[in-house]
């Protein structure tokens, strides 16, 4: 009963806060709007527009690294968000951000999202299992059911492979964005170690492992190196 009463009230409150943040942005109070958007994000729930707007606010303040981070988050929630896609490209051009190159399977499999592949896998699995049950219990074996069974399990295998490939790919859960300035990827976990690559803000890295305050990451140009953990933020919260 309490939940039923409290939910619309909370929703109205976040709507008001969202409108306030938008107004602050419109008035040019970008830092205020950033604070409001981040407060909304902390409280949840999340949606792509919220991160997109926060990215715009960061862009206006010249923080291209965080702008790119939030555009990437918007796209992670809604891969076909046209505004986020457009602004992300602009921010990348401004920051000279480096991008990770996806592997060729990942390039082709990106036409659908992980969630779409998950649903496809589920449907294919159950249809396939149903065909199998029918084949077991039917008095007469149906060739149609056998073909369908084979097709469904093939679709299931492709879907599972796609999920695995996308999840560990450059847009997967390990994707992080460099948010600090003057970040140097190094060959060892020391500020004095030799530099591997200079990473402009907004550059993509893929976290491979962490050690203390350092992240070992796959870098653009097929390089690998250590970067300070504070200098990058993971896209997926």
């Amino acid at each position, binding site marked *: 009963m309490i939940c039923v009463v409290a939910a619309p009230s909370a929703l109205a409150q976040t709507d008001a806060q969202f409108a306030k943040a938008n107004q602050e942005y419109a008035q040019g109070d970008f830092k205020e709007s950033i604070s409001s958007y981040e407060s909304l994000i902390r409280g949840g729930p999340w949606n792509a527009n919220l991160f997109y*707007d926060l990215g715009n606010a960061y862009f206006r303040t010249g923080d291209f690294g965080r702008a790119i981070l939030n555009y990437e988050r918007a796209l992670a929630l809604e891969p076909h968000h046209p505004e986020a896609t457009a*602004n992300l490209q602009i921010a990348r*051009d401004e920051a*000279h951000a480096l991008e990770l190159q996806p592997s060729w399977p990942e390039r082709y499999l990106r036409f659908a999202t992980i969630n779409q592949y998950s649903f496809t896998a589920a449907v294919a699995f159950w249809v396939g299992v149903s065909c199998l049950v029918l084949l077991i219990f039917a008095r007469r074996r149906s060739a149609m059911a056998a073909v369908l069974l084979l097709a469904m399990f093939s679709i299931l295998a492709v879907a599972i492979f796609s999920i695995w490939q996308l999840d560990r790919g450059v847009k997967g859960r390990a994707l992080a964005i460099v948010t600090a300035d003057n970040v140097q990827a190094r060959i060892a976990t020391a500020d004095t170690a*030799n530099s*591997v690559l200079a990473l402009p803000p907004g550059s993509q890295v893929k976290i491979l492992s962490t050690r203390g305050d350092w992240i070992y990451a796959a870098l653009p140009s097929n390089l690998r190196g250590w970067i300070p953990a504070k200098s990058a933020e993971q896209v997926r919260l």
Partner: protein
Amino acid sequence: MEMSMRYPHCGETVSAVAQTSKSAVSQVSKPACRAEADQVPIWKSAIRQVWKPALRTIAVFITIAAAQFARADSPSITAVLNNSETVLGQPVQLEIQITGAPDAEATEEILADGLEIHRTGSSQRIEMRNLKLTSSVIYDYTILPLRAGRFTIPPQTIRAGGKLLQTPQLTLNVADLPGRSSGGQPSRGAQSQPASASELVFAELIVPKKVAYVGEIVPVQIRMGFDARVHPRLVEPPEITGQGFTAQKLQQSGENLETINGRPYDVVTFKSAIAAARAGKFEIGPAKAKAQVVVPRTRSAPRSRARSPFDLFDLDDPFSDPFFSNPFSQLAERREVEVKSEPVALEVKPLPPNAPPSFSGAIGNFTMATDAKPKSVQVGDPITVTTTISGRGNFDRVNAPETENERGWHKYPPSSKFKQDDEVGISGTKTFETVLAPNERKQSLPTLAFSYFDPVKEQYVTLRSEPIAITVQGGPATANVATSQPGSSPPATAAKPNSPAPVTTKPQDILYQLTERPRAVESFEPVYTQRVFWAAQLIPLLALIGFAGWKIRRAKIDNREAWRIAALQHEAAELMHKLRRNDASPREYYAEASRAVRVKTALASGGREIDPNMVDAETAADAFKLNGDSRDRLRRLFEQSDEWQYSGAHNGPGRISRENRREVLELIENLRA
């Protein structure tokens, strides 16, 4: 082929020395006692000598195999002088090495003004690097300067493996030499041979230069000669003593037989290089070594023996002793002797001031070539710049070339590898790989500069790479071409390549703010990690379980019905069999007949599952849809059965007539659904 002809007693060289040619050994006329010397050579065991032909045969096979392997690689050629400086009358060795083309043939003679160059031999070398066999053919030339001056040996074109290879142009400096005094010769330190056991050996230190610069690599040779009959054994390897210079590890470069003053000597040559650490006048050497030699036991009696045929010059040769003609006649003794050369003076000059910024201490004569890959990249992508520095000098001080204008580039520490072309590493090629990443659009690579000091020209030389055009896409264009000029002030927009501030073009504006807030809650977690996804899978799972349960139950039911029908059919068949027999009493007969009708009725009822015990005449007649006559007959059958069952056993006749039996059988057999 040249041969060393040095007279240890007078310490004077009367002809040229070319000690590196291995073929020189076989072409020397051997004295009669050479057989003894062959039995125990200086550095090689007798076993090695015995197996020498076999080893040579194996080497031939390896050479053939290597040649097969080497064909896969593209052939290459190198040309190296053993010394870039000499004095008039002092020959210099030229070695042309062709790798990967065993069929290559070099010219017999090279034409060069002021020089007489003849081919003196050839050899084949097989190397295994990283499990890969490489075959090389080495052609040795002897260069005899005809006059003093600076001479150029022109590039030689040699056809190898279907390709035309060209040797680099080499320069030889020949100093003037009035007369043949030792002062003009390359500095040599040699020891005169006293008339004792030690006179059977000699050593000389050859330093080709008298003046050098600090850090300059000066090649040196140590020649150690042993009378071929003393069966020498080296106890301590040679070393060059002295202060103020560093010496590289000595490498044995050759061994040959020389006839000096009528005596056969096994001469072993060691090569090394020295580099002076400071300016001043130094004494290099002496070079010292210890060896054991076999000499005849000393006799106190005055010499009474006849002169040895080897002692041509009546030098009181200890080998005139009869011991050498008959070793068993007297005992010999092994004696340790010190082999020591004379020191050689070397004047070391400091390097001139005003060295170029890219000078890292390299002294010698070098060439530089640069290449880059890839030539088309995106901003931030790495470009590998390969710089090859070839020549002759102190390669340990040859560092990677400096980038003259690094603006707009990110440079990574270079890697290097060195391939030496001679034993001591004075000649060779050092390759550097430097990774450069453009931070903005560029049209060419920055110029690379490498400086060295040329001791011949006595000046610093700076080599600069040719501009290499590249294409860099993405990012802003280079702000100002003028920024590539050293010393010019960079524009503020290009000062910080990674700066988020706009550079030269007006930045594109981002799209508008979205004020609509969708109600749908979105998550970064993939749907397959969410509980609701897996909970939803319960729906098809339960549906499938329900379907399967229903199908199983149906199957069980079908199975039970089948069993019942089978049992009824079996019972019906047995009853019919009994009815066809004549031995049953009327009571049994009618009971079985009525039971057969009931069973057949139950079977004919199909899915209705009629219990046979519940079947009466009317039910059976309805089930089989009998007409009036048959119905009456069936009714009468049931009545008779009941009569025989319930009214006692003795009503009516004791047996059933054949007619009645046939009638009953016919009635039952005609019951068909």
